[in-house]
């Protein structure tokens, strides 16, 4: 048994027009007529086939769009991926339908109505307007959806007669050309049942080879040429904006649907994404390199969660300033890998802690920049400013390193005389600013590596009382110049 989903508003839904709440219609530029209207447009009295001048008279705020075949196909692919969770056999039936085979899934889901309920819940994110049809073949299921007669079958569906399957289907609703439909209606054939009662030879003569084959396929007498849909290896999306976008936050609206589609793609392919890039095409730029700025969004632990990627994208975009309006946008996955199945352990929250920590780091890096969060790495250098280096936090590196670097340290008693705060750079001072309390402690570095003639590789450090009472860590270099290098805070 097959289940068909027909999406009458697919052409508009593919253009992301539903969320804006405006009256929108598709037009045929050559004929200057409306092809398709959304609900808001219909509410103002517009309908398909209406001329453009009349439409603008009824609704001066009407927004017009043109059909985008690529966007429609991408929308069909996403719907197919969404419905893939209910059946292994999902077929795209252009231009606006998806067929899924459900007979083999009845044992798992229990009943056809259960599959229908779950499918409706899953489709909520992707489409608001769709019609469902059931039948023993894909073609007939589509016809039932087109005629808005779903015929929900019971458990004994295998015993149903062919006449029951095709009852109540009017020929005028079928996806046949209007010329053929008018000819058949002219001969008095209004329903599929009236055609079914004809002898085969007569039926063939009235329908012609093409329609006769379709009729045969619908009844299951001829094998349907259905090709199951398989998700592609990778995911990319391009959007050419109708108007130039001047604010980064305005990019969020189209990005939301793209990221949701991307995460659905990842979930179906059982992949985790680690980074993706948004390439913008600017309207103009004085610098050639800046005509296509690339925004990279990454999360080191990987995820297929749309809310997480949306949050990181929003954080990144709030910090970005556009030098020129954006004309188009491309989204590509940079890195994705097979997702790992995790074993749950009620008494070990380490995995959860690692996940939380990495999400936190990604969040901070997305808003504040890659180098915004750093952790110190201790080295065996002698000069204080070289003894620790602050590196960008990478959780994976930390895990690999493990343990403490305490073993590398030596001369601990000397370190008892070191300050808690260190200045970012040694700051030149004058001797009358302090009074020496303890010292000196000589610290030398490898003179052959030293390129900094100002601070010198040989220093005599002192603990000194600053003029305002604080305890300072100061040093004098070979040239006799004094520097402040820390506070005993």
């Amino acid at each position, binding site marked *: 048994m097959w289940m068909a989903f027909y999406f009458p508003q697919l052409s508009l839904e593919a253009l992301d027009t539903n969320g804006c709440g405006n009256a929108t219609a598709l037009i045929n530029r050559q004929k200057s007529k409306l092809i398709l209207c959304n609900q808001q447009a219909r509410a103002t009295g517009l309908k398909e086939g209406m001329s453009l001048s009349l439409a603008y008279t009824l609704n001066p705020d009407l927004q017009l769009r043109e059909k985008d075949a690529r966007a429609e196909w991408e929308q069909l692919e996403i719907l197919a991926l969404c419905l893939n969770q209910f059946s292994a056999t999902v077929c795209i039936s252009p231009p606006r339908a998806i067929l899924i085979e459900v007979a083999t899934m009845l044992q798992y889901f229990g009943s056809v109505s259960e599959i229908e309920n779950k499918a409706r819940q899953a489709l909520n994110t992707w489409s608001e307007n769709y019609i469902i049809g059931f039948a023993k073949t894909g073609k007939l299921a589509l016809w039932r959806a087109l005629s808005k007669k779903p015929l929900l079958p019971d458990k004994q569906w295998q015993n149903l007669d062919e006449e029951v399957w095709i009852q109540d289907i009017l020929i005028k609703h079928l996806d046949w050309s209007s010329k053929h439909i008018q000819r058949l209606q002219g001969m008095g054939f209004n329903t599929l049942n009236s055609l079914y009662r004809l002898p085969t030879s007569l039926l063939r003569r009235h329908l012609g080879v093409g329609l006769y084959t379709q009729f045969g396929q619908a009844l299951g007498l001829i094998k349907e040429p259905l090709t199951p849909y398989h998700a592609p290896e990778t995911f990319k999306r391009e959007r050419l904006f109708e108007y130039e976008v001047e604010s980064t936050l305005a990019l969020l609206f189209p990005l939301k649907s793209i990221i949701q589609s991307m995460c659905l793609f990842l979930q179906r392919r059982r992949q985790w994404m680690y980074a993706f890039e948004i390439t913008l095409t600017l309207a103009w730029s004085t610098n050639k390199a800046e005509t296509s700025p690339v925004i990279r969004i990454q999360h080191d632990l990987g995820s297929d969660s749309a809310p997480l990627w949306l949050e990181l994208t929003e954080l990144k975009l709030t910090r970005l300033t556009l030098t020129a309006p954006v004309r188009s946008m491309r989204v590509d996955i940079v890195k994705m890998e097979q997702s790992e199945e995790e074993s749950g352990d009620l*008494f*070990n*929250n*380490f995995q959860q*802690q690692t996940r*939380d*920590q990495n999400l*936190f780091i990604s*969040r*901070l890096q997305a*808003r*504040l920049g890659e*180098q*915004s*969060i*750093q*952790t*110190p*790495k*201790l080295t065996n250098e002698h000069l*204080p400013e070289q*003894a*620790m280096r*602050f590196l960008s*936090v990478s959780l994976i590196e*930390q895990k690999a*390193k493990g343990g*403490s*670097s*305490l*073993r590398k*340290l*030596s*001369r*601990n*008693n000397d*370190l*008892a005389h*070191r*300050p*808690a*705060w*260190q*200045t*970012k750079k040694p700051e030149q001072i004058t001797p009358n600013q302090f009074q020496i309390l303890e010292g000196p402690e000589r610290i030398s570095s490898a003179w052959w590596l030293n390129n900094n003639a100002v601070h010198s590789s040989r220093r005599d450090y002192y603990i000194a*009382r600053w003029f*305002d*009472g*604080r*305890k*300072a860590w100061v040093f004098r270099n070979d040239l006799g110049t004094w520097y402040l290098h*820390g*506070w*005993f*805070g």
Partner: protein
Amino acid sequence: MHSPSLNSLSNKGLIWRGNTSPIPVEQKEEKLSTGFDKIDALLNSNGWPSGDVIEVLISQPGIGELSLFTPWLKRASQDKKVAFINPPFIPNATLLELQGIESQQLWLINTSSEKDALWAQYQCLKSGLCCAVFMWHPVKADMANTRKLQLAAKNSNTLGIAYRSEKAANQSTLFPYRMHLKSNKDEIEVRFLKRRGGWETRPIAISTQPNKSQFRRLAEHQPTLSAL
């Protein structure tokens, strides 16, 4: 090691105890002390109060404001991070490691604007990943923001330390703890202007000089120059 122990669950009040006798003294000191008996005596929480933000008023940075917290951080930072957001100087990770705070537990967060700094403070306090968040606030503080930070600290049981200039002493804040620090040679004078369950206190002198015995204890496990 990272799974919640019975004691940690009990400390959060998630376990009902049939025997309500207090925790043994040795255990209490080891787990909850600030490292300074005089301060412990003033804080009813017996340790720096996780889940609250302490406002520390200082004349200028570098008078001992970090050393006051390092004994407590030694234990608290074992499974949580210590965040420094836009510090005026770099924390000496080498020294902190010798005092028992592992360098990989330290996070240094730098932001380019005050708005971002506030956002980072809120995120750090809210996340529950940090045991302590060190923040530097301007003299003029926003009430709504301080309230948000206090609520975030409370919900995640994180200690927030907000340093402000002593010029802000006359301004009120919503933080439940307020301390004034004053440098006095090798000691610092600590005065609580505001605290939970108590009145304003007189200045108490605290010595924050590094305890050399602590370093010696660490040195026993390490190769010395002569051994090499």
